[in-house]
């Protein structure tokens, strides 16, 4: 898979990262080599293999993992906002969006 500087630019935009032109040039071959490394997996024929979501066997998938619809204590407003960089009036305050 060919990775171009435009792909890196798009990835940066999607990830909300600001990168310099220099970084973009440096990252392009690095990302390309990471993808080439992972692409080796494509050499295996997996046409007969069911994808294992979460690494589970069919028996594992059938193991009940749901919870009952019961309300458990929440953190509450004060604790929820404790680590927020800019809480105000009980809200997370962020730079204007819209």
């Amino acid at each position, binding site marked *: 898979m060919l990775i171009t500087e435009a792909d890196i630019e*798009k990835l940066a*935009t*999607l990830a*909300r990262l600001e990168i310099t032109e220099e970084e973009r040039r440096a990252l392009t071959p690095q990302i390309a080599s990471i993808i080439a490394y992972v692409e080796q997996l494509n050499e295996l024929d997996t046409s007969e293999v069911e*994808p294992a*979501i*979460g690494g*589970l066997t069919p028996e*594992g*998938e*059938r*193991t009940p*993992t*749901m*919870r*009952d*619809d*019961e*309300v*458990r*204590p*929440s*953190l*509450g*407003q004060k604790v*929820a*906002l404790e680590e927020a960089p800019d809480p*105000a*009036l*009980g*809200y*997370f*305050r*962020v*730079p*204007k*969006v*819209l």
Partner: protein
Amino acid sequence: MRNDWEAVIGLEVHAQLSTESKIFCGCSTRFGDEPNANTCPVCLGLPGALPVLNRRAVELAARAALALGLRINRRSIFARKNYFYPDLPKGYQISQYDQPFSEHGELEIMTAVRDAEGHAREWRPKKIRITRLHLEEDAGKNMHEGLPDTDRYSYVDLNRAGTPLIEIVTEPDFRSSWEAYDYVNHVRQTLRWIGASDADMEKGNLRCEANVSVRRKGEERFGTKVELKNLNSVRFMQRAIEYEIERQIGVLESGGSVVQETRLWDDRAGETRPMRSKEEAHDYRYFPEPDLPPLVVTDEFIARVRAEMPELPSARRQRFMDQYGLAFNDAAQLTTDRALADYFERAAQAANNARAAANWVRTELLRELEASKTEVESCPITPENLGALIRLIDQGRISGKQGKEVFAEMFATGKSAEEIVRQRGLEQVSDVAEIERLVEQAIAANPKQVEQYRAGKEGLLGFFVGQVMKASQGRANPKIVNELLRAKLNG
């Protein structure tokens, strides 16, 4: 819509499922609590927190899927939909993508052409294909106004983040705004009826989006579609689609082309406007959610959900028509709400007169409920009491006019019809001997009028009826009074 054009419309409806707790954590789904009170590491997206699926959400989604005619997949998987927005703390929404909870639905709705005032003419059935119904979590809520410095700041409340939703997507099967309107009302009514969602659009528990395009009649290809948002009521949605159809036809007829975009409905201005958006290129990079196992449902589970399903509104409407001889509009009105349908049916049984019960419920009862802002569940008149009132009228013990007065008092006081009739001494006198005595008195007291009547002045019958009614304090059965007077005067 101009005759040589055709609209092609598809709908996406999001409905909040009626659970106590969120879909992947135990936080409450209660509406109106103080901001961010109902949050925890899972719904705040704190590192290391793991989602666990709410069984009730799955049951309600299954109920909705079956009621709307979809097939439930025995195995579906959750996927991450990645995007950045302040109301989405994890940076992704847990949704479903290529293996959704249910698919391949076909739903028959009733739809009608409307006149200029929006009154329905001629209902007819139409089949709508439903592509999929899947489970997902809701995002939080961004506040852009009503708080300090909103020119610089937005405020985020994550109480709603992680609330269970179903997303219901149709094929582009609607050809008019009214078809879309009738469909959303059908879905809304059904979800409420089966208890899957309270589908309250004001609270944002039901939201819809429409994809609208137009093409010349006979054209196979679809036109460029526009996505409509900010449709805060079913009526807004209908108006927005109508506006958008005309707008697109106007653009095309003047030689322009429709731009693929998202537009917002502004009801005050009565128009759609392009959404201001920094990033239109959607690239959600869906991938399977590694923190949740596939959702496997068994045949027994589906059989149980099916067995617990109440008779659906459309089936009940048809049964009201077949069993009680009601007209479509009346049956439809009585099945808008399950509690109302139950009320009617109990009243009809108690009255042993379904048509009269239907009339009373549709007119007097709904009017009083509306005027007093009362839910039918807490109606002061029990259906059995309404049935008893109807029987009193059917037996001729009170007149229809008195019935309405008694009804008003029943609604105000919760007393039974019998009790009110007794206390107010309203009961009609239908005892022939008693009325005959009053008739004879009236004749004996007015010899001049008798003579005139017998000489041909038949209009005087009304005078005699009045005399008898007065003597009986309005309680004599007018039919019997008339018959007896005629017999005596003519004899």
